[in-house]
């Protein structure tokens, strides 16, 4: 990033994964998620790992939140040479783990209130998007109903989409996608980029990172649970506490992709 603007960053969001700062770069506005050890890493974000620095930074952020919402980080020395690869490494999907996720998600009560506050419609589209991908489609018609749709600062439909991308990412590494499915995944990743202009700035950041194969650490934990029913049970608990609906929205997408990938798996088809 262009650190010449670091003296004039503005807090735009304090969320579950980190604190999002924004500033003006040479050509466009830039967005900088700041994350800490207890929140996990976020694609494109700066991770503050030392406890003392976390305390100082949180104090500065809190002060800024009360006053002008602007923060001067120009005195900070940032080691941008130390980067973390946030591509998923999970490479296994077990049917019983997917079953645990499905059963847990089915038990979640509907969110009451106005239709626009209900993530149910976006969650129900997860299977449609996953089915489109394994059929070789980019899922554009479904994507149009998902991106930017639903409650939350990262709308539920965006979280579902990120979950679908993560699920297929794992499925591809697990060898569960045939050529048609891999083509569908590539096309979905391409389709997400132009579609992301229809959502919020923060959600756009997540969608574009997911399309590039990079996911925040919490999604890594979700993805790893696809291999193990016991871990699946554990991540459902964490997911239910991740924002109002985000964790469960992501899990819906992840489950749908894993289910669709297993359904078309050449290996499974042979076994059947």
């Amino acid at each position, binding site marked *: 990033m262009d650190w010449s603007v670091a003296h004039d960053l503005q807090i735009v969001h304090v969320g579950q994964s980190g604190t999002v700062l924004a500033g003006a770069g040479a050509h466009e506005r830039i967005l900088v998620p700041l994350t800490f050890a207890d929140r996990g890493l976020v694609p494109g974000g700066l991770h503050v790992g030392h406890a003392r620095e976390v305390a100082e930074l949180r104090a500065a952020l809190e002060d800024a939140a009360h006053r002008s919402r602007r923060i001067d980080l120009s005195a900070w020395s940032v080691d941008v040479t130390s980067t973390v690869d946030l591509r998923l490494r999970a490479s296994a999907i077990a049917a019983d783990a997917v079953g645990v996720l499905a059963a847990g998600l089915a038990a979640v009560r509907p969110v*009451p209130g106005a239709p626009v506050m209900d993530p149910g419609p976006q969650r129900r589209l997860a299977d449609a998007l996953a089915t489109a991908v394994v059929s070789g489609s980019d899922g554009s018609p479904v994507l149009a109903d998902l991106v930017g749709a639903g409650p939350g600062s990262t709308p539920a439909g965006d979280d579902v989409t990120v979950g679908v991308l993560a699920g297929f990412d794992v499925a591809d590494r697990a060898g569960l996608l045939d050529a048609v499915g891999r083509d569908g995944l590539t096309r979905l990743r391409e389709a997400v980029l132009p579609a992301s202009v229809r959502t919020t700035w923060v959600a756009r950041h997540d969608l574009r990172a997911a399309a590039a194969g990079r996911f925040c650490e919490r999604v890594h934990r979700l993805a790893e649970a696809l291999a193990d029913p016991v871990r699946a049970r554990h991540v459902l608990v964490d997911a239910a506490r991740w924002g109002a609906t985000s964790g469960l929205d992501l899990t819906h997408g992840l489950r749908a992709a894993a289910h669709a990938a297993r359904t078309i798996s050449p290996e499974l088809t042979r076994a059947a």
Partner: protein
Amino acid sequence: MTDQLSARVFPKLYRDSVTLMALASAAQRIDGVRQVGAVMATPANLAILRESDMLPPEISPAPDDLLVVVRADGADAGDAAVAVVEAGLTSAETTPGTVAEVRPATVREGLIRDEALTVAAVSTPGTYAPVVVEQALRGGLHVFCFSDNVPVEDEIRLKQIAVSSRRLLMGPDCGTAVLDGVPLGFANVLRPGPVAIVAASGTGAQEVACLLDAAGIGVAQVIGVGGRDLTAEVGALMTNLALDLVADDPDVGAVVLVSKPPAAAVAAQVLDRLGALGTPTVACLLGEADIDGPVVVRGTLEGGAAAVASLLGSALDLDDSAGADALRALDVPAARGVLGLYTGGTLAGETKVILRRAGVSAEILDLGDDEYTAGRPHPMIDPAARADRVAAAGRRPDIGVVLVDLVLGHGSADDPATPLAHAAARALSDARADGRRLLVVGSVCGTSADPQGRDRQRRILEDAGVLVFASNAAAARFAVAVVTSTSEVQQ
């Protein structure tokens, strides 16, 4: 009434989704408000609002704007709802620091935040509780598990994990604990002292501790173990560990175990364990016969507390003279029916024991039981449902005595006496108008240091005509006396 939309756009404003959901929910509870949306104004969300007839035509927000829309039965309600959301958004903006946002969302995050943590309190729905409890135990924490509906197989497995690491798993379905003076769940403010209470019943432990407190005897620890710990299945896994821990505590001079009757094999094992502790011990096992052996066994809470006091060279302060006076003043015989309306399950149980021993049949309800609390708070938190039943008892000609409890302390309602007093006054008035004698009789389980103030709560009840006794057992004994004297009069 006109169905009307109110809306406000907050340009480029992000708020945590939990905040938005909570504000929308709060606004929707305003009278006349039908639906509230608080979402980012993306094209897809505007389309959803349009399809549900919730998009005002005059606005054109951008995707990064926060849009609040309210459908209400008129402009006033709609504007009030928008104002509630706006106030909440502003409050979130100016609330000191980011405390709410950085609060640990998981056990793991909490442990990262502060390695000095020692106890996790778990109150998730029962389905999720085993996972959270296991995370906490494996993180080296003691666990207070308020959650109920946890399968017994999970309880056994988790308690085995806890025992292997010498960590307490208090619960599941644990109502009370006081560890080094720190209250967890429903807990009274107790003076510090030499008594350790290990309890498989919440209000049982509270009653024993409060009776001791009133006698000037303090408490070192109250360790709840969950209502199933002394069953044959669980085998007193946590009771045994808790007894080991309190036996090693140099501040503990006496130990009391409080429980409903345990499984026979478990009872024998636990009594052996108590006898070998090397500390004066009392087993307060509800309904069991009183035994003065190496381990003193008492079948009531009051009996258990009195035995502990005696071991420490003291005595409980139980003055039943008010009961005798009331009995003498019973000019009109009361009906023979006794109705118990309890918020504390063990207090209800103690009353059953005393009435059964006296041969008095009665209708004793534990209104904190799942049967009565589905979809509503526990009656110690929300006294309204119990109060309704007390008021209704005044219209029942078969009822001569209504027995009640009033449990104070952290976790209980701010002023539980007032609704109960209003209901009792109503019941007494209705009975009087019908030419009947009704007695509302009870006790206050609390201490003078409790947030509600035991004496103040007691006065509120007495002013309404409730006969208040020093213990639950004393109130039950009075009910027996009333029924017995009424029978004699009728003969």
